[in-house]
């Protein structure tokens, strides 16, 4: 079963999203801040990371940059989840090295489609 790392500080959203992902059949590891997210990504090497951006300790952009500059983690696809539906956020996400980005509130069907696409691509390669 593919493992998804969910980095999200809001407890309700974290709980809701991880439960929905689990219901889809994914194994979900959750982190509640940037540092923990970075640690878990390095130690558990998940198949995909859902990265909230406004995080305590270390924000999503920084975590993404760190992971993308690390040889052992740079291959993991990262989908940024941002509540700022601003133009600059989209650019920032790509600039930081995110592979995709989605806005909150999550439209779950759209998000799960994105996740499936990434996992499929990974499997194929």
């Amino acid at each position, binding site marked *: 079963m593919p493992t998804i790392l969910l980095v999200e500080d809001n407890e309700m959203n974290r709980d809701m999203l991880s439960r929905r992902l689990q219901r889809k059949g994914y194994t979900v590891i959750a982190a509640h801040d940037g540092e923990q997210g970075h640690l878990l990504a390095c130690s558990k090497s998940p198949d995909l990371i859902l990265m909230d951006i406004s995080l305590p300790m270390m924000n999503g952009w920084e975590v993404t940059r760190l992971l993308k500059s690390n040889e052992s983690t740079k291959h993991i696809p990262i989908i940024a989840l941002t509540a700022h539906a601003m*133009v600059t956020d989209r650019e920032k996400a790509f600039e930081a090295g995110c592979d995709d980005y989605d806005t909150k*509130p999550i439209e779950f069907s759209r998000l799960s489609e994105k996740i499936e696409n990434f996992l499929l691509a990974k499997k194929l390669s």
Partner: protein
Amino acid sequence: MNFHNLSIKRKLTLITMLTSSAALVLSALSFLIYDLVSFRHLLIQDLRTQAEIIGYNSAGAMEFKDVPAATATLTALTAKEDIVAAVLYSVDGKEFAHYSRTNDAFPKVLPPLSQDQGYRFDGGYLQVFHDVTLNGEHLGTLFLQSDMRQWSVRAKRYGGILCVFVLISGTFALFVSSKLQRLISRPILHLEDSMREVSVKKNYEVRATKSYGDEIGRLIDGFNTMLSEIQHRDGALRSANDELKTRTLELEKEILHRRQTQEELLTAKHTAEEASRAKSTFLANMSHELRTPLNAIIGYSEMLDEEARESGCSENVEDLRKIQSAGKHLLSLINDVLDLSKIEAGKMGLHLEDFEVLPLIDEIVTTVQPAAAKNGNEIKLHVSENVGFMRADITKVRQILFNLLSNACKFTDHGTITVDVDQNDRDGYMRFCVSDTGIGISEKQQQNLFFEFSQADASIARKYGGTGLGLAITHRFVQLMRGQISVESEPGKGSIFTVQLPTQVALDNTKLARAVAANEGETSPAGSKIYQDTILVIDDDASVRDLMSRSLTKSGFRVVVASNGEEGLRLAKQENPLVITLDVVMPEFDGWSVLKKLKNDPALTDIPVIIVTIVDNEPMGLDLGAASYLVKPVDRDRLAVLVERYRMAHSASVNRPHSAPSVSGAKKPKRLSELKSIGDLDHADDLVGRR
């Protein structure tokens, strides 16, 4: 002292004095002369009579040559004081007898006499000659000499009297004239005093008093008339001056008042602008904060919905759906408010991309199909054959069409909704036309249709829901892409919304604005021009230069390349590019030095520099002022995204306020700042809060 400078008083006295004295002296002199002349005649007459008597008496003595008798006769003259000598001459002219008072010398021989007169004046003496005859016989000549003592005494006395008289009468004349000169001098002096008072004290109320009806009196009259004239004019001048002062004061007050008002207005304007900005920021933040709990609401309700359906507990499904639908509605409202606040804050940008129009239309129609079916509406689609690709912000085009279509579905009951799409190759515009057979919009309602929070009718909000933001946002999006939106409608029959968008939406608003301005008033606007921004690529590796320029040219940029730092700096100044990409490892002049130079030049410091290098030292690049940092091998897509971003930022800063395209069928849209009032925003909060 000069006579001319004497006072009038003195002059008059002097003139009178001189005149009277001269007359007096002249008359006295002529009297004296007359008197002296007649007295001398008298003296001559007297002396001749004396001579006649003496001659007669001494004739006998002469006859008889009796000298003593003759001398005695002559001596009788002693009684006559003034006769100083008497001589009797014989016929032969020799002295016969003589008499001398003081033994003075007398002529021994008869002097030649003047026959006519018988007398003469000689050396202050009067001399008389008289023939002595007896019985007609000439016996000799009598000579008498007088010293005219009486005459000189008389003359002296007369002279003295005259002097005294002249003195006395002169003094009297002085007294009289000094009294009488006042007749003339007093009014003149009075006039002078009045004049001095006028000229020194500027007192025009002074009047000279007229004493007599003579010339001076008339002069005073004239002077007084002149004074009253001056006084009148002075008064008029003063009152005019006062009025002028009052007016000036009033004007100054007015100016001050206006200046204050102006300042107040300016402050009010700034406050209002500040408030508007704060409002927009607040709305953006609020919307963002509202999304987070909403995220949970929608997510959990969806999850519960799924779970309920899977476990077969269908009794809760309906209620969960209601929560979901309410949550989504709230989300759409928040999105609308956020969109508007972004537009207001000038943060709404465009992501231009090339896309095919037909699939987009199909997608939107599919999306609104459920809404159409809900009211029993049928959607008809007419897309012309020439419709192909366009370059625009696909998200916004989607939202524009979605808004129009969902409105059409919402306000039409069991009718037909038609979507017409065609492309005008001539003017470069794509035309989207959404028509329905719904309730329609009245003429009056059409006027406010595209403004925020103004649904056609308050009752509509109750019946159909919605915030009234949909068309306003649609309108703004169309404006952002330099398009036009218009409406035609008749109540009860339906509405036709037409949107025209350039097939090639450009970001360079200045050029486009010019094209639009040039075509203003024409029915078909000119097509947009594709504007090419320049990108300067500085890299010593020819293959990298080639690759980058190919990739960027494909993205629609003009690319200028430089093979070393120096050339790069020169081209940067010359081309003023939109963005510079800079390699770090270069011979002679490395990328860091080029970057420093670029950032130190005020003309170039604003050009964003993207470092493209194999050296992984992003902090240093950012410290030196680079805008972005890419590590080779370059990801072409990332580069494109970055450059596009700078292009957008640039165009936004070049032309922030958009000139609104004309909207037929609706009132010309006002400026954003004018539309927004605090009431509107409060209303928005209410709407969000109530739902």
